[in-house]
């Protein structure tokens, strides 16, 4: 089943075309890794999927993206962002809000919990799933900015999980983490794909090889090659893909 599908997608910032007629389908319940050199449009593509691209006034989007066959530009943007959550390269909890508030905020704004007890329970469940509960349960009211980088990233995962999203977009989520925290996040993503579809942007071919089911290789705003992870690494069909996975193209 296709969960997300981009058709002839084009994105430009001012006069600079970043995505130029991209076609891609993301299968449900899997991890699809987006790989490609810097500037190939990976992060931009993620920001189209949840329409955060609209926070960039100079960005112009053309073409189509479908979520379960429905045009995402016709879905209410708030509903879309609830269903399609995102974690970022630099962990971005809202630093002046408490650990609890960071996870609870979206639930409160969208009135997703009926009462305080349910809110607490959902925050707790999300933190548990993100493997952070044990480390923060005694200081839920401390500012999120006080956590370590790895903890902040797991807090951001918890914030996303609180929505019980259908799609999780992860934009190089381990680029700024040490190996131990990287392993934790990777284990988490593997676990989460049972419940949701994951799109992972990564600069590390090894990471894609470790946890993804499919790889899509982007170059200059287009998909060069897409296939099961194993095939991409063992028998890439395109010269550029081969160069990239063997470390000869950055």
């Amino acid at each position: 089943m296709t969960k997300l599908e981009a058709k002839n997608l084009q994105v430009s910032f001012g006069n600079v075309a970043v995505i130029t007629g991209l076609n891609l389908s993301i299968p449900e319940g899997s991890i699809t890794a987006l790989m490609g050199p810097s500037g190939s449009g990976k992060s931009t593509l993620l920001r189209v999927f949840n329409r955060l691209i609209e926070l960039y006034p100079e960005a112009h989007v053309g073409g189509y993206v479908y979520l379960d066959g429905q045009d995402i530009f016709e879905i209410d943007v708030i509903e879309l962002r609830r269903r399609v959550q995102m974690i970022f390269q630099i962990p971005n909890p809202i630093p002046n809000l408490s650990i609890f508030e960071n996870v609870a905020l979206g639930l409160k704004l969208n009135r997703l919990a009926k009462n305080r007890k349910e809110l607490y329970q959902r925050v707790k469940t999300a933190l548990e799933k993100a493997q952070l509960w044990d480390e923060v349960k005694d200081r839920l009211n401390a500012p999120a900015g006080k956590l370590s980088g790895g903890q902040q990233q797991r807090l951001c995962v918890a914030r996303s999980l609180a929505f019980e999203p259908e799609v999780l977009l992860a934009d190089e989520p381990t680029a700024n983490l040490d190996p131990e925290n990287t392993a934790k996040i990777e284990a988490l993503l593997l676990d989460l794909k049972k419940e949701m579809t994951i799109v992972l942007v990564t600069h590390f071919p090894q990471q894609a090889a470790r946890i993804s089911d499919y790889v899509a290789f982007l170059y200059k705003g287009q998909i060069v090659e897409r296939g099961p992870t194993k095939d991409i690494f063992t028998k890439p069909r395109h010269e550029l893909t081969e160069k990239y996975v063997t470390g000869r193209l950055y």
Partner: protein
Amino acid sequence: MFFIKAYPIFAREGFAMFLQTEWDPGAQKYGVLQALVGTMLTSVVAIALAMPMAIGVAVTINEVLPSRLRTIFGSLVDLTATMPTVLFGLWGFYVLGPFLQNAVNTLAGGAVMTSPSTLFTASVLLAIMVTPYAAAVIREGYALVPKAVEEAIYGVGATRLEAVLLKLRYVISYVLGGFFLALGRAMGETVAVAMVVGGNYAHLTTNLFQSGITISSLIALQFGNARFYTYAEPALFAAALLLAIFGIAINTAAIYLIQKWQP
């Protein structure tokens, strides 16, 4: 310096002048409580009116205007802060005062505001004058909200309005900074207030719609003939001392709170 100059009045009356409400040097009456109350009232009302306007201006500039117009419009707002205050005073006396008197009396259905020059006129004029100061500080802070935080806010399904409120909360130290800067300006503003406050030296009032006096306008208006009376000059210096102490207290509070709420 203020204390030395003020000493004769303290020697004569102690601090009682701060509790008396009548200023009449001819009758040896040097009370300044009415001016103190006037300063408090006008500043508080002015800030209450100015802060929503300042936040509105700052948010509008950052959220609504395209980036090209942002700098132009921002500078325009800043410019109003540099206008000579006497111009505001003239405008307040000839335009704002009569307008407010008319508006208030129409709304109240009676002659509530008997003069165009009242504490209320001064408050509204002050609000207009200090709004650019607060707006400049808040605008600057608001523009500093990192894109990552903005994406986090919208990423959790915030509406535009909710996002604006969350961003303001993120830069709360700038909002406080603007608040205290505006409050300081409002308490100290002299010329424009002196022109529209009514110059009522001898009567304590907490009714905004009556004419009154503030410490700074008392000093400005009475300074000229203070030398004719032995204790008038020291009394004015005592009032000035009070204003200075208030200023220092507000700045101290501001520095403490702003540091505490740094993002």
